[in-house]
Every structure is written in structure tokens, then in C-alpha cells.
């Protein structure tokens, strides 16, 4: 994945200007690859015939499962950037996890929406408190909390460090939440819940699923790099505005002399 490559060669990406140049070159290619992958994925998922048991609704899985994987992966990317912020105090890492939060929240929203849409024909209710769906919902709350925290502070440097701490504390808690939700689920729900997807799928369904997953991943990286570029521009604009304000402040008040 190009994102982990970008994080490993940290040193030469040190200043954002080089990142901007790189992003401008890479973005057209990335969007083209994403478009192709989506076209292939959609064709494959609609060409295959329905599953004998779930009927056509298996097609919802082609969207739901990649989105759920992506929401997990996005939080991992944010945790990596959080380490970059706290340990190496890398300005690019601040930008990375600040821009990844809205993307993660959006993909988690897709996962929740498609999950409940899948639940309706299967179990007859819009929202079923299934273990996986519930932990994705808690993850969604964590994303919203992080976005709210990031927007609540004006100094971007401090905001990034505090968000990084919260991301890491949250990251450590994900297994505990997962375990407690599974425990809570088996306690109240009869174990007859049909396993939603997972590796027990035979070949004919796996191929479209993988293609769609790859398409979603590429979409995430394209949007993430573009959003990071926007954030760098936003910070550059605010830095220059501050400089403009300061320069204006230093010049003597010409207008006052003319008026007296």
C-alpha cells in the first residue's frame, strides 16, 4: 500500500513541499486506478449469480465487508500517524491523522448503513445488535469524538498531539471493546446468528469481494492523500495570513499623519 511506503521513508518526506509535489504527481494515477478497480468490482459482483441461501442480498456483502475492513484499517493508519506525531513530532503525521478521521467516520457510516440494510431481509429488523455491528458502531463514536476534539482546538500543533494520545488510548482499548461486545452479545443473543461473511466463502464470491476491497482501499488512499494536501494548503494559508497581519502591524501608521 503506498500509504505505508510514504510512512516508512519518513525522513525525505520531512518537509511538506516535497509531499505536495509527490501528491500532485501521484493523485491522477491513483484516481485512475481506483476508477478501473471500481468498474471491475461492480461488474464482477453483478455478474455472479446469487447465493443459494441468502439470495441476491449477498451482493450487499460486497460493499459491507470492505467498508468494515476499511474502517478498521483507517484507525490503524491513524494510530501509526499518532505514533509519528508523539515520538518523532513529525508535522506530516499531524496532518495524516487529522485528515484520516473524517474518512474513517464516512466508511464506518457506510459499513453501518449497509449492515442494517443487510439485516432487514435476513432478520426482519433494521438494526440488530450483532457483535460485529455493535463494535463498528462504538468505533464510529470514537471517530466522531476525535473529529470533535480536533475541531475544538485552535492551535493545530497542540490539537494534533492531544488527538494522538486519544487515538493511541482508543487503539489499545479496541480489543477490550471487541471482547466485551462479543461477551455481551453471546449473553443476550441466541447463538443462531448467521455468520456475516468471513473466510467460509467459496471462490466464486471471493474474487469480487477482493476486487471491491482493493477498490475501496485505493479510494481511501486517494482521498487521504488529497485531503492531506488540502490540510497542508490550509495551514500554509493561515501561516501566510499571520505573516501578512504581522507585516501590516509593523509599518508606521501612514494614514494617521495624512489625516491630522
Amino acid at each position, binding site marked *: 500500500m503506498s500509504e505505508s511506503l510514504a510512512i516508512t521513508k519518513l525522513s525525505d518526506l520531512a*518537509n511538506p513541499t516535497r509531499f505536495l509535489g509527490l501528491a500532485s504527481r501521484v493523485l491522477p494515477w491513483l484516481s485512475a486506478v481506483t476508477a478501473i478497480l471500481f468498474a471491475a468490482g461492480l461488474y464482477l459482483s453483478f455478474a455472479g449469480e446469487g447465493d443459494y441461501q441468502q439470495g441476491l442480498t449477498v451482493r450487499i456483502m460486497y460493499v459491507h465487508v470492505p467498508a468494515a475492513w476499511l474502517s478498521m484499517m483507517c484507525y490503524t493508519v491513524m494510530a501509526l500517524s499518532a505514533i509519528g506525531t508523539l515520538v518523532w513530532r513529525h508535522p506530516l503525521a499531524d496532518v495524516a491523522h487529522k485528515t484520516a478521521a473524517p474518512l474513517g467516520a464516512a466508511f464506518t457510516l457506510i459499513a453501518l448503513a449497509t449492515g442494517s440494510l443487510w439485516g432487514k431481509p435476513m432478520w426482519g429488523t433494521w438494526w440488530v445488535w450483532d457483535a460485529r455491528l455493535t463494535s463498528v458502531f462504538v468505533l464510529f463514536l470514537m471517530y466522531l469524538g476525535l473529529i470533535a476534539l480536533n475541531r475544538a482546538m485552535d492551535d493545530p500543533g497542540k490539537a494534533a498531539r492531544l488527538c494522538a494520545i486519544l487515538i493511541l488510548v482508543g487503539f489499545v482499548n479496541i480489543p477490550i471493546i471487541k471482547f466485551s461486545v462479543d461477551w455481551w452479545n453471546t449473553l443476550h443473543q441466541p447463538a443462531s446468528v448467521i455468520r456475516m461473511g468471513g473466510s467460509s466463502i467459496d471462490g466464486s464470491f471471493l474474487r469480487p469481494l477482493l476486487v471491491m476491497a482493493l477498490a475501496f482501499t485505493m479510494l481511501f488512499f486517494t482521498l487521504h492523500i488529497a485531503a492531506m494536501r488540502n490540510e497542508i494548503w490550509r*495551514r500554509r494559508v493561515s501561516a501566510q495570513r499571520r505573516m501578512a497581519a504581522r507585516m501590516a502591524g509593523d509599518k508606521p501608521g501612514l494614514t494617521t499623519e495624512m489625516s491630522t
Partner: protein
Amino acid sequence: MRLIAENLSARRGEDLIFQGVSFALSGGESLVLTGKNGSGKSTLLRVVAGLLRPESGTVTWQADTGDKGMRAAEACHYLGHRNAMKAELSVHENLTFWQQFFGHSPQGKSLSVDEAADAVGLGDITHLPFGYLSAGQQRRMAFAKLLVSFRPVWILDEPTAALDVSAERVFTGLIESHLRNGGILIAATHQPLGLKNAQELKMAGFAGIAEEVW
């Protein structure tokens, strides 16, 4: 004992407030920071007190007892704009808490709570809750906090702000006695403290955007 700062630079928000500040202070010396508001005096004091991480440069403390690895902040008292006292607790409780919390360092002499209160001229009202005192009295009590537990370095951020002349005289007397028995002082102030051989550092303030981070 010496307090050495090399090539300090610090940033407030996104802007670089000062660059390349260095000084070295040994026993009995004092450094006075002057400059208009917002010129980085408080920021420099907070960096020396270890409350703010500097952009570059280091603050090192060489104690004559030679125990290495002691952060510079642990040898300092910091008196900021706020008094760090609880209004509900009585003055005596406040000062005894800070005495126990600071712990008594072996070198110098730490005054008892009542001696410290007498030293700032408010010996008889230590039983009153802190909230009942006037602003000047509260400031004096905050200063008494420096006396209850000995620390070689005093970092004062505009100690004499909003004080009457008599209180100022008390403060300068205490500062001079601190310097006489080998203490170090770093103060940011507008009115001259009337210290004799004090080094002076003029803070210019804004020193340019943090070099091209964005």
C-alpha cells in the same frame, strides 16, 4: 552551582517567539527580562521552568553536589501570574501543603510556615481562608510559598505587578537576601527591581514564522 541555557528557541502556537537565547547564571547572579507585552518573556520563563518544550536548545543545571540527571526544573521555584493557592483552604493549610509537596532540599534553609508568613509581613492572619485576603496579601502569600521550601533558583513572572510600594520593598528585600546566600534569580518585570549587577536580556518578540514548517 550553575544554570546554563544554550541556544534556546521556542514557539507559541505556530510562530517562533525567540531564537538563539543563551545565558549562564551561577550563585548570586540574576537575569532580568525586559520587553513589551507578548515579547516572549513569559514563554522563556516557562521554557526554563521546564513547563514548555523548547523548539531547540537545552537548559542544564549543574549542582555543586554533582548529582547528575536532575532536571533543571527540579531546582526551580516558579511564581507565575496566578498564585497557585486554594481559596477555600486557610493560608496555613495552603503553605503546609506546598511545604510537604515541594519536600525540603538538603542544601539551603527552609523557613517554617509562620516564619515565612512573618517574612512577608502577614504573620498574624495565617488562619484566615485564602479567599478572604486582598490581592496584595494573596500575592505576598504566594511569595511566602517560595520561602517555605528552599530552591536555589527563583523564576518570577512580574512578581511586583499590581502591588503597593511597601509590598514591593518587602519583595526586593527578600530577593536580595536570596541572592546574598547564593541563590539565582530570573525575573520578567516592567518596573526595575533595583538589583545591582543584574544581567539584562531585552526580548524582541516575534522572530519570524517557524522556519517553513508549512
